[in-house]
């Protein structure tokens, strides 16, 4: 049993509950216990730092304090939250901001997807696969926040991250190379400026399809929402006769583990992946 402090972030509590539920189920299957930080609050996302950066860092700081009370490494599900928490942690370490909580900052801060792709977790994952998705080709899409800026996220592979690719391979599927792994999806810009959101998402979907992907695997609730929810409008606008399911890595693992409860979350996607699963599992592999 591995225990970690866990910060879900607001998206997982509302629109992206499919990520939350699939994460819980996959963590359960892997004997990973995630202890939610008590009374956690929003990290402030882009809005807080756009209006007042000094104030904005106080928001993640109080969540770091909550995690420290648990005395465990902190695992973060949402890339946006991860980046804001990592930035705040660094600023506190360098004493560039006030610290009314007197934080020790002696525990690790982890991006959950990257943790799942660590060697020991990959081994556990392979042992849980009941339905290898051998006929499935996907592209992995990481977005901005878990990789950039490398000074904050601590990543060395920011140009070509591979951890989701490793998870996809562990599920028996093929992750195809493409050039847009860490290209921005537009984040929340699609709400105040829809044309910008549509333009960026269209570019990603076209590139994924050109790479021969049958689905896109993501680790960020904002990326998932943008790529999934804007598809009906783009199909109409561009005259596309195709659609691409957008799956969280946890959903893909849940399908490969053959956890029946994953399907409830999949039903919430606008591009419903449920109809494809049989075909992804390939021939000669039983469903149960």
């Amino acid at each position, binding site marked *: 049993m591995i225990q970690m402090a866990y910060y879900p972030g*607001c998206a997982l509590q509302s629109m992206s509950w499919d990520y939350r539920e699939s994460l819980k189920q996959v963590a359960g299957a892997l004997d990973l216990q995630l202890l939610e930080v008590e009374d956690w609050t929003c990290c402030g996302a882009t809005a*807080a730092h756009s*209006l*007042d950066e000094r104030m904005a860092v106080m928001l993640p700081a109080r969540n770091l304090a909550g995690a420290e009370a648990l005395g465990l490494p902190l695992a973060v599900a949402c890339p946006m939250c991860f980046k804001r928490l990592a930035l705040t942690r660094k600023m506190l370490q360098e004493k560039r901001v006030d610290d009314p909580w007197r934080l020790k900052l002696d525990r690790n801060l982890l991006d959950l997807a990257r943790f799942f792709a660590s060697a020991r977790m990959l081994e556990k994952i392979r042992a849980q696969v009941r339905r290898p998705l051998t006929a499935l080709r996907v592209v992995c899409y990481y977005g901005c926040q878990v990789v950039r*800026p490398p000074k904050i996220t601590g990543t060395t592979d920011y140009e070509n991250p591979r951890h989701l690719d490793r998870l996809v391979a562990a599920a028996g599927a093929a992750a195809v190379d493409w050039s847009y792994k860490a290209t*921005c999806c537009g984040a929340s810009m699609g*709400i105040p400026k829809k044309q910008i959101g549509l333009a960026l998402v269209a570019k990603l979907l076209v590139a994924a399809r050109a790479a021969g992907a049958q689905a896109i695997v993501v680790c960020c609730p904002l990326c998932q929402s943008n790529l999934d*929810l804007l598809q009906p*409008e783009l199909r109409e606008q561009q005259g596309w006769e195709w659609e691409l399911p957008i799956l969280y890595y946890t959903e893909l693992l849940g399908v490969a583990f053959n956890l029946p409860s994953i399907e409830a979350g999949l039903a919430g996607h606008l591009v419903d992946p449920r109809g494809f699963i049989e075909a992804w599992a390939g021939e000669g592999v039983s469903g149960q």
Partner: protein
Amino acid sequence: MNEHTPSLRPALPMHLWSRAVAAETGINAASCYQCLRCTNSCPVSAFMDIKPHQVVRFVQLGQREKLLECSSVWVCLSCEMCSTYCPNEIDVAGLMNFVKNSVIASHKRPAEVEIALFHEIFLEVLHKYGRMNDLQLMQRFKLKTLFTGCRPSYAEVKKDMELARELFQRGRLKLAPERSRAAREIRSILERRHGRVISS
């Protein structure tokens, strides 16, 4: 002197503003030699009035007013491509953010009111609940923009309603917002803010 040149003259003595920016943010715009790597890596430079490398140049030249009035800084997604790829390690996205903060702190109307209002409404929801809720954010934002002159067309409203219905049917919209028990602490943090978005 033609109409294009004045913008290149320092509005303030250069050493004053660009050094003040460096002192406040730790970002040294002076080391930029205009290689354009920031602009070339930016996914939204096509939507900007002043391109990222020009933002850095304007900081060097002390063109504070020009920057406070530009829309680019609001269009910036904070995706950090520019900051990651700058050969001189200038945090270009950080400069953009500093300009946004300056617009708000100096009580100016942001060039992209809708984007700034979206951030403002985000903090409003946070102030109330301590956590974000998509439905609250969308409703409040749509209502607010109705009163700022940026009126959506009937077709746009219809599309929004259809998407909302679809999401609701699929259980993606949570009607009852979740409240953190620490909402009061968040309020005391948010109330330390400098300035508000001026929308009219």
